[in-house]
């Protein structure tokens, strides 16, 4: 019955330093936490809908909508995708890194779009 033994023990050593914490780590997450996050997400969805359809914030509309979308995605990233509980540095910098790359693309594109024809 060696196989059974193998199944009960983690397939790698668990040490307090966090090395090989691996697959046991996420058991900490409570169902309740997920439900609260979901409630927050639904509330923000209703909020963004109400602001856009009911309040008409004019020129600020796009910024308000994007701020709410950003908040929602950070909730999903941190809680549903567990970035908040990741301890390795790479998982901490991975999203800011891709946002930075994206920002560079936006700035380069818009510096072309906005000033094309102006500087000639």
């Amino acid at each position, binding site marked *: 019955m*060696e*196989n059974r033994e*193998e*199944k009960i023990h*983690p*397939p*790698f*050593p668990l040490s307090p330093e966090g090395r*090989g914490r*691996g*697959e046991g780590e*996420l*058991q900490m*997450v409570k*169902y309740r936490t*997920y*439900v609260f*996050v*979901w409630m927050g*997400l*639904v509330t923000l*969805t*209703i909020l*963004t*809908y109400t602001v*856009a*359809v009911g309040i*008409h*914030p*004019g020129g600020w*509309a*796009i910024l308000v*909508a*994007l701020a*709410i*979308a950003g908040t*929602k*995605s950070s909730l*999903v*990233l941190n*809680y*549903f*995708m567990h970035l908040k509980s990741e301890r*390795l540095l*790479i*998982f901490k910098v*991975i999203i800011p*890194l*891709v946002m930075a*790359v*994206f920002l560079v*693309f*936006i700035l380069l*594109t*818009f510096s072309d*779009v906005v000033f094309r024809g102006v500087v000639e």
Partner: protein
Amino acid sequence: MDEAKAPVFEGAIDYTGAKLGMWLFILSELLLFGGMFILYTVYRYKSPADFHHASKELDVVLGTLNTIILLTSSLSVAVSITALQRGGRRLSAVLLMITMALGLLFLVNKGFEWTTKIGHGIYPNSPILLARPKGEILFFGLYYVMTGLHGLHVLVGVCVLCVMLILVAKDRINPMHFVPFENAGLYWHLVDIIWIFLYPLFYLIT
């Protein structure tokens, strides 16, 4: 000893490596959609009024409903993974099925939306659409491409979750080994995040 029941693990498996690989894939997906978001931003900047008019024709209520459906499916898959980690295989399987059903419901709604639009003669290169201002043509072009590509991702996600359901049922994914399931969950949340941005940009232009 049953050969088929032999332990899956020969020592350590690279849990972090598997997850990092998934994250790299997710980042490439974000940049793929990011490119289209830039395109959207440029065209919207160039013809704000046309985007505004075209956006008004989309069904905001259906879009909001679909947002809530996808958010709920994200909740169910997250709880499903935790349930499996705690040894609740049945609960995990039920939640997985709910997630897949919600994903399909999203696609059905999207299908209705597209069918209505196409019924009104608004689809890429249609004579009715081509007779409209340039900005509106661009808006609907982007609408079909971006929601279409997103819908494709939802479909792929449902298929991946279906594979996970089979693996859970076969006990190939269990509290000792669930990296594939977790990665499938990450993919599903990615699809959710993309929709979180598509929703205000297409449905809520005021």
